[in-house]
């Protein structure tokens, strides 16, 4: 689009009267042409300001991960919804209280580990192999056990982006 054409269309652009294709062309031209942006500022400074409002910073992938983590969290919450969730939450709390600071090997007796500070920040550290380590307090317990495992496992979600 030439500057001459763009400036002819600016009054209709400001009047919200352009067809979408023409409007896109004018917007693209304005994005690239300082002279025509100055002409738009004369015609409608509020629209000229709006055109310069920037897009958010580029942390798009972190945002995508947060959304997808949120979906998984909601799904687990739904699965554990209603009465069964209450029962599981209570059971999980008991198990967590009992085994807090311990590693719980599946298929074997709980093995004592070094004492963990109860004031430590809530965290989950999936240990190597079949171990799950629970630490601290105030974490949210969502899921109990792997159906295939004979012993207790506690899955704790403290970060919605974690895979379950």
């Amino acid at each position, binding site marked *: 689009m030439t500057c001459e054409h763009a400036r002819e269309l600016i009054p209709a652009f400001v009047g*919200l009267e352009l067809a979408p294709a023409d409007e896109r062309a004018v917007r693209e031209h304005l994005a690239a042409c300082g002279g025509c942006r100055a002409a738009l500022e004369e015609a409608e400074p509020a629209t000229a*300001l709006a055109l310069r409002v*920037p897009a958010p910073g580029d942390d798009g992938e972190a945002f995508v991960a947060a959304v997808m983590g949120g979906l998984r969290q909601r799904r687990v919450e739904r699965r554990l919804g209603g009465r069964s969730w209450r029962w599981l939450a209570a059971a999980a709390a008991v198990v967590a209280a009992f085994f807090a600071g311990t590693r719980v090997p599946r298929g074997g007796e709980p093995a004592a580990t070094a004492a963990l500070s109860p004031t430590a920040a809530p965290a989950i550290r999936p240990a190597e192999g079949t171990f799950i380590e629970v630490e601290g307090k105030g974490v949210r317990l969502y899921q109990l056990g792997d159906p295939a495992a004979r012993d207790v496992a506690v899955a704790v979600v403290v970060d919605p982006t974690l895979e379950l």
Partner: protein
Amino acid sequence: MGLLCLRVREAVSEPRDDRELVGAALGGDENAFAELVRRHQAGVRRCAARILLDNEEARDVAQLAFIRAWENLARYDAAWSFSTWLYRIASNLAIDTLRSRESRDRTHSGHLRLVGDRVEPVALGKLGEDEVSRIFDELAAALPPMQRAAFVLREVQGLATAEVATALECTEATVRNHVFQARQTLRRELARRYPEYLPMGGER
């Protein structure tokens, strides 16, 4: 060899359009939905941020909008573009948040000048991105929620009038009215707070 051919075909295949991705997501394909989030997150976040005038709160609202979209995907009507549907969910959430938010102390007396102060005109085009966002937020705080949402969707994001009407569940005439009234308020606030950014320093 067959596998190699398949991989080559995948590598050169056209990107899937939104409706194809929605179809795949409806079948449980989370990667397809992640691609939709990737495509539309910048626009949704920008709109939420400029409606709420708060980047952090906007991030939460935008995230919730995508989660709601996923949970209600079966209700998506393919007669609309997927982005319009997303903007509808996000702007509803943002407007609700705005209306329920306790009024915040937003005084900007530091930017007010005494009447009669002379200022030299400065082109808006000379401002940096952060400065544009700050000034926009300050001026847009004077707009009621629906006017602000209509202005942001129409003028900042560049949606067509019909799309904004769909997103805000009103008529196109109402969208135009909101935008024109919003511009009038923004011009008035600009003249009051930043006359240097008006042509001729606000003296017209």
